[in-house]
């Protein structure tokens, strides 16, 4: 059956080709005169601007690098009394604000660094710095921040903010600092 069809179409093709070749050649028609009218000028407009939806704070946050975020220091540091690691009253509003930020950017993870002034010994300051970082950690956790989002570390007196030897410099160095390590 298929064979028949193939043969039939072959024959048909031959017939068609034959008849086409036999057709007397018709004179080719002259080309149409050039159009007198210019084509309409179509103004190319800019594609209609796609109005981007305004970026949410979260999106702005996600678009920045960790360095950029930390440079802006959205989490403020807190300060401690000489030889002490208890959270002072003036540090509480700062920690409250920091916890607000952590609630807003709920994916962010932070590192709390505890620091000391030069008037403690190297070894004891490593322990004291850790206590300071831990105090800040405990306070943030008490405000409902997940402990899984916070790491802490002590630098003792190895990273002074202020290299002076005055009460002001020492106060600036007795601190807990907040570093964003994941967003």
């Amino acid at each position, binding site marked *: 059956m298929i064979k028949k069809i193939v043969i039939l179409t072959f024959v048909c093709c031959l017939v068609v080709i034959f008849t086409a070749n036999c057709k007397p050649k018709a004179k080719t028609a002259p080309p149409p005169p050039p159009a007198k009218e210019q084509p309409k000028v179509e103004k190319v407009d800019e594609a209609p601007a796609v109005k981007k939806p305004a970026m949410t704070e979260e999106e702005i946050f996600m678009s920045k690098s960790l360095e950029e975020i930390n440079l802006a220091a959205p989490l403020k540091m807190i300060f401690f009394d000489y*030889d*002490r690691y208890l959270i002072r009253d003036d540090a509480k509003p700062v920690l409250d604000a920091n916890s607000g930020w952590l609630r807003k950017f709920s994916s962010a993870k932070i590192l709390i660094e505890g620091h000391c002034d030069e008037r403690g*010994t*190297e*070894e004891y300051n*490593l322990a*004291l710095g850790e206590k300071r970082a831990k105090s800040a950690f405990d306070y943030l956790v008490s405000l409902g921040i997940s402990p899984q989002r916070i*790491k802490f570390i002590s630098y003792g007196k190895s990273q002074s903010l202020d290299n002076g030897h005055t009460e002001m410099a020492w106060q600036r160095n007795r601190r807990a600092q907040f570093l964003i390590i994941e967003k």
Partner: protein
Amino acid sequence: MIKPKPTIFVILSLTLTPVLFPQQEVYITLKEGVPAIGLALPNFISRSSSAGTREAAAELYQVVSDDLTYSRIFTLLPKKYYDYIRPLDSSNIYFKDWESIQANILFVGEVTESEGENIVFEGKLYDVKGARFISGKRYQASRNLCRLAAHRMADEIVKVLSGEKPIFTSKIVFVSDRDGNDELYMMDYDGQNQTRLTFNTIRDYTPAWSPDGKKIAYTSYKNLNAGLYILDLEAGKVSPVSTRGTNFSPSFSPDGKRLAFCSTMDGNTEIYVANSDGKNTKRLTFNEAIDSSPSWSPTNREITFISDRSGLGQPQVYIMDAEGSNVRRVSFGGTYHDAPAWSPSGDRIVYVSRVENIFDLYLLNLRNNQIVKLTESNARNESPSWSSDGRHIVFTSNLSGLLQLYAIDYDGANLRRLTSQGNNKLPDWSH
């Protein structure tokens, strides 16, 4: 080990408090040490006319002379005494001559050229009174290792004559920021050959030697975590001990079997002890206060440490058994003590005490509970570490502005500065 009876101890300490604070004018004198032996150290003989050999002989002489002077075991005879007697003839020594200038011991050094850049350094010790040869030693070294050959010879002299463990080839490991970041360095005991050990951009801190001098335990702030690691110097390999929490102040037991350190792995600064390979960590202290700065007794059976359990922000020195039991306080008077280091002889603990923003080193004598102020400098002197012979202590001081390492003798003599580049701190002297 000394176990002070608490009652007597308290009374003694109370009576001693005035000594510790208002005026600290107590100094130990050398009378309790070994009497210094008169040693004749004539210039070393150069057995070659080459300038190189003569220079080597002069360098070797200088190093041996400095080492033996530093030892506090010997008194080197003034060189001018040698002019009063016949010149040294190494093949025929006139012992009477040397006796006449009060030499007990005579050391004769000879330097010969050997193939290439090498020299051969031979030293002979003589007992002057007995007119006899005691012992000799011969070292071959390339020219650039002259200092080491000299230190070896000085070690040998001390070993033969005093039976003590010598310190001249010992090393001091420390932290320096001279290359921009806190890294580990080591140097010879005399401050020479300062060599960098760690090369990274993270902070390396609180190093401590293993007793065989092959490993260093230290804190490294890798991955935003202050972990404790062991650096194997020969293999160039670093292995972790504890990376949970903040870990610092490691201290190997003198038998090299265990490693004590501070860690916050359970939430608070406590003292832990692990096997020397870092495995099998056990907690020793259980107190809400800070417990830190462990240092072993030479018997391996006790650990001195500090704790502020008696008052927040007021660390005091304690001793406990190596298993964590039998804790007793040994510092009284004063409000801030840290970094205790147990002397190799076991009878003293050196520690830092803060009085009105000044840190000084103090020695607590465990035999009689006497406290002696070792430094008096109006500066911050801290992180003391003993030499293995118990005669010297290396420490950090800001005496000259930046933090530098200094060494001082156990009686306050021979203060000398060992570093000058950048800030240098947290020294540990190898044993």
